[in-house]
């Protein structure tokens, strides 16, 4: 008698626990399904944004190659870490796009080292870049810019950044633009473009072969090419960012799908177990009579 009462007791308690688990599983299932919905729609949005960015990248790339040509042909022999050096990191405000921001950050850290010298200044374009750089290079952070990446970058955005850099009062001798160079939908390279100040350009070895150069022309030329190169870097990085977000969201949706499958299986099993247990109880209860 005593053993039977105790037996009746145990299923009763497990049944309660089983019910709770069933509810917990269904809640979890619902949450994961919602997350999958979000990541799926984020993927769709970035796919649309990506195709636009890629379309716009084509002319911007020819433009950038044209702007780069002069700096590539210029033979500048300047000691990078002796003179004032400026690092411009181009990224964006938004996350959830894989290692787009951190790869730029890593490239910068590899270039300047853990304890950067005081003659290296960093400009962060984009909130995510600012957050990363503020931690390690607080003393070298010259300025930060945000509101980048909500809509596709335009030439006037680049002109604003170039203007800020020129009017901030920091006299750099050489500069480097860090950005993600778009290669294909699944890959991008973190690359740099060198830039020089008017002073450095006029001291370059092969500048003398260029005709009719005066201070004014050179200054205007350098300012315009700064804006052009920033525009090019922004376009490249916007395209890489959207493609990276697309890939990241796709794998997130896939992972959520796997999770949903497993949870559904557990849910069904648990429900079956609960039903079976209830049947056993009823049958054994009837048999006991």
């Amino acid at each position: 008698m005593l053993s039977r009462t105790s037996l009746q007791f145990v299923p009763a308690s497990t049944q309660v626990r089983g019910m709770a688990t069933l509810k917990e599983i269904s809640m979890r299932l619902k949450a994961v399904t919602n997350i999958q919905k979000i990541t799926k729609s984020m993927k769709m949005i970035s796919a649309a944004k990506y195709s636009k960015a890629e379309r716009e990248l084509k002319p911007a790339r020819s433009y950038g190659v044209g702007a780069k040509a002069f700096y590539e042909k210029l033979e500048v022999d300047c000691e990078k870490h002796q003179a004032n050096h400026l690092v411009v990191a181009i990224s964006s405000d938004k996350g959830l796009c894989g290692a787009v921001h951190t790869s730029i950050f890593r490239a910068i850290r590899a270039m300047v080292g853990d304890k950067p010298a005081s003659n290296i200044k960093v400009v962060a374009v984009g909130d995510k870049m600012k957050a990363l750089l503020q931690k390690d290079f607080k003393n070298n952070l010259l300025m930060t810019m945000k509101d980048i990446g909500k809509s596709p970058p335009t030439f006037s955005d680049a002109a604003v950044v170039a203007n800020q850099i020129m009017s901030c009062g920091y006299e750099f001798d050489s500069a480097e633009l860090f950005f993600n160079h778009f290669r294909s939908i699944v890959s991008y390279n973190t690359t740099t473009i060198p830039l020089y100040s008017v002073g450095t350009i006029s001291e370059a070895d092969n500048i003398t072969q260029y005709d009719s150069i005066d201070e004014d022309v050179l200054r205007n030329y350098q300012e315009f090419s700064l804006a052009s190169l920033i525009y090019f870097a922004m376009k490249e990085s916007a395209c890489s960012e959207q493609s990276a977000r697309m890939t990241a969201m796709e794998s997130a949706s896939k992972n959520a799908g796997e999770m949903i499958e497993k949870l559904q299986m557990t849910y069904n099993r648990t429900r079956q177990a609960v039903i079976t247990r209830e049947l056993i109880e009823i049958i054994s209860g009837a048999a006991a009579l």
Partner: protein
Amino acid sequence: MHCGIVLPRLDEEVAMSILRSATKLHASVRQCARLVTAAQQQRRGYADMAFTFASPVTVHYEAAKVKQIDVPSFSGSFGILPDHVPLLAVLKPGVITVHEDDATSKRFFVSSGSVTVNDDSSVQILAEEAIAMENIDAQAVREGLNKATAEVNAASNDQAKAEALIGLECYEALQKAIEG
């Protein structure tokens, strides 16, 4: 105001005539090594002028072979032939004429930008805005010109006035390009 626009045109003609005579008079050309190679290049048939002309949103030419390009710049208008002396220049509002070959030439209006001629004879023209002349609406230009004039008059401080003047200068050049 008018002088400022007429002068570069004169310069252009002078530059053109110099170039023309340079290709004809071989004897005098030999005095200058650079021009000799320019003439030789021309006899070979305009090889190797990789011409890139782009604005941020469109590419008009990419490493294309053309015969001659006439460019308006702040240091005077000039023509670029293959194997031009390496050069840096800043564009001013005006018309770029691209002579693709003897028969065809295209005209583009540019607002500002840069011109680079490198020693490998590649030419890069990067404009902030570049529009083919046939796509320009004369009515819109007149309206824009009036608006820009009003803005110059309404400008309260020096900076606003300078900005408005840049706009006005561009519209005047555009008007001039349509008329001429």
